[in-house]
């Protein structure tokens, strides 16, 4: 069964966010004085083939910790739901590497 996970990655509190500050500055200079803060993180959509919702969740959690985020600066939350999306192929780079088995 296909599931889609939405992983929201944000910078930990206390980690500077220059990109967020820059956007904040830009927003203010456009006259939006009521925007006290902007923080920018990543929004990662991951499609997972799994037997169950729980299985998919466990997998996404593992991925989130292992590769999608760097625990030194980032935290993440995620949601998982069944999906009927039609998927596109990746661009091709390193596709074959997987076949030759990088572990």
């Amino acid at each position, binding site marked *: 069964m296909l599931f889609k996970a939405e992983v929201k990655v944000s910078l930990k509190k206390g980690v500077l966010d220059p990109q967020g500050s820059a956007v904040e500055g830009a927003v203010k200079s456009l006259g939006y004085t009521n925007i006290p803060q902007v923080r920018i993180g990543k929004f990662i959509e991951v499609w997972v083939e799994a037997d169950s919702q729980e299985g998919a969740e466990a997998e996404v959690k593992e991925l989130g910790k292992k590769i999608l985020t760097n625990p030194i600066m980032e935290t993440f939350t995620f949601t998982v739901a069944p999906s009927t999306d039609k998927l596109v*192929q990746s*661009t*091709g*780079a390193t596709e*074959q590497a997987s076949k030759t088995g990088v572990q």
Partner: protein
Amino acid sequence: MSKFDKPWVLVGLKEAEYHKVIEILGREPNDVELQMFGVMWSEHCSYKHSRSTLKKLPTKSDRVLQGPGENAGVIKVLDDLAVAFKIESHNHPSFVEPFQGAATGVGGILRDVFTMGARPVALLDSLRFGELSDPKQRHLFAGAVEGIGHYGNCMGIPTIGGEVYFDDSYKGNCLVNAMCIGILHPDKIRKGIAKGAGNLIMVVGARTGRDGIHGASLLASAEFSEGAEDKRPSVQVGDPFMEKLLLEACLELFETDAVVGIQDMGAAGLISSSCEMAARGDVGIEIDVRKVPAREEGMKAWEFLLSESQERMLVCVEKGKESEVEAIFQKWGLLSAVIGTVTDDGMVRVLDNGEVVANVPAHALADEAPVYYPEKQEPAYIAQMRTFDFTALPQPEDWNATLLRLLNSPNIGSREWIYRQYDHMVLLGTVVAPGGDASVIRLRSAAEPEMHGVTRQAGLAEGDTLPARPCPIHAPKGISAKIDCNARYVYLNPKRGTAIAVAEAARNCVVTGATPVAITNNCNFGNPEKPEVFWTFAEAIDGMAEACNALGTPVTGGNVSFYNETSGQPIHPTPTIGMVAVHENLKHLMTPGFKNPGDVIVLLGETKDEIGGSEYAKVIHGVLAGDAPELNLEFEARLQKAVLAAIHEGIVTAAHDVAEGGIAVALAEMAVAAKPGARGCQASIFVNAGRIDGNLFGESQSRIILTAERDNMMRLRSLLISHGIPHRLVGDVNDTDRFQLAALQPGVESEFIFRRQDLIDLPVDELEKAHKEAIPQWMSA
């Protein structure tokens, strides 16, 4: 095709062109075939408006191994070392999305060069935007610079130089041109050719999606108009990581004998690469689009043919060697797929899952597009501009302030804001970094094949002896390169302005000590169907041809970008020149900064009161009018020879050409770039005739400033005299950290009495600040 009244309109063809297609085929084309003709006969692919004019350009010399017609030109540097180079525009995509547009522009030109079998070793960029006071222009400029950096940096190819101008004529149509230089062995030039019936056609690299469909036919071959939104294809996204893998895989592939020919898939993707390869080899090609690795589902046959997905190559492979190819691409984590074969019937036959969907003669697509000889008409503005009365302009009251304002102009000031975002050092070749005139890279293939050789070699084999330690490298040869075009001159006088662009690009290389050998060019113009635009184009090509003949720098290739207009307003005609010059011996590297206090400053060439088209007229008086400065090509050639001789004799300590802002700015730049301890000068400019401002800030051509140690002055002077170069001692370098400039004018009483007028006296720090802040003052807001 009876579905539509005017089927040709759908693919951007003219009615007469459609009839020509019918004549060639002996029948009406089907949908897919019509698409193929539409794109291959577009201006971008067929050069139908420019082809006849471009024939005038000189293309041959002893050094030229490959002239126009291939993916890039190639010149010989040493018996075992050649240089491939080419320039490309990505103007319209960059206006739509500056970051991705510029990035994919770089990706495209890199592929053009490595498809020749060369390892790219340098990039240059040429940029044009509207004035930086406009936020939209800042957005375009910042995005384009970031995109170029993104791609080049990731690829590990240094961007060693470029040029940028800001002028309102580009505010609705920016220009982003990128040039690439690669090195290869002269005997190992690869070509975009298919040969040998039964050989295989393979696609390698990225998967094919619907990106950029119709980019060539619609975007690059029609003017922008408001509300053209729906015509826009989805933005092409560059993947420099993929291209880096593709580069390494291709170079590794070239070490085998599996490759018959190779061509990158740029504009009009699969269709243009396959029909061009077939046409060059006088063969046919049969391909099945369903064998092309797809990124999206449900793609139609014509979408495969026209897709401009980046980072792909089409390769003609010796039959039976496909597994060799696969293995190499697999090692680099890339896809490769056999999609067809070479045939001997001269037809491009396209199958969709075995079923023929198009069957067209390759030559018809690649070579038989109609050739137009458009009408020409001198635009009315030209004569009008020439009548401008410069005597009505006031002379500056505050000369210090005037110089500072010029140095602070984004068209003159430091470009560090740009090149500090570019990796300009990787590959350890950059021996003159951006910031001066032309940049210089050293070439070391002959002595050290493992370094800049075309492929990476394994480490030392056992038993190899190590070089003695320490091992300082004195690389003997180098390449100097510069992109240049002052489009204001071209606007005022297309022919002379273009000749100046060639001369100035050459001059910039000469002052580093390199001998100019060849150019590539990127003609950026408006709509060629307008007689006024076409006239400027034809004049520009005449001027380019004259200058290239005079300076011995043939044209090895280039690119034409027409339809650079917004709402009917063409840009200033901008024939960008990419010059390549050879350093015979890097011992004689020259840079513009003052070196030693006490050195004398010598001005070569003649200074006239020429304000027309100058940065001074524009920045200080808000005027663009008059005529381009005069240019005597015979003298220019002589001047360049003399300067090279002087540099090679080792009697020059600094060299800089006089360009925008005139002598005053040129000297100021030399002071700003000076070595510590030589940051100052005292100079007097002899004003023979005309206005002082015209002499100080005017942009008379064929002038170069040299410095020399006092003891070498007589040698330098006699060398200049023997070359017939008029020159003057104008002052000397000192350690006062002050920049002092005076004018010497014949007195009213007698022409033998000179009056000295002290005009400029500023701390060099202040010059430096104005120069440094020229671009950042706008960009950090």
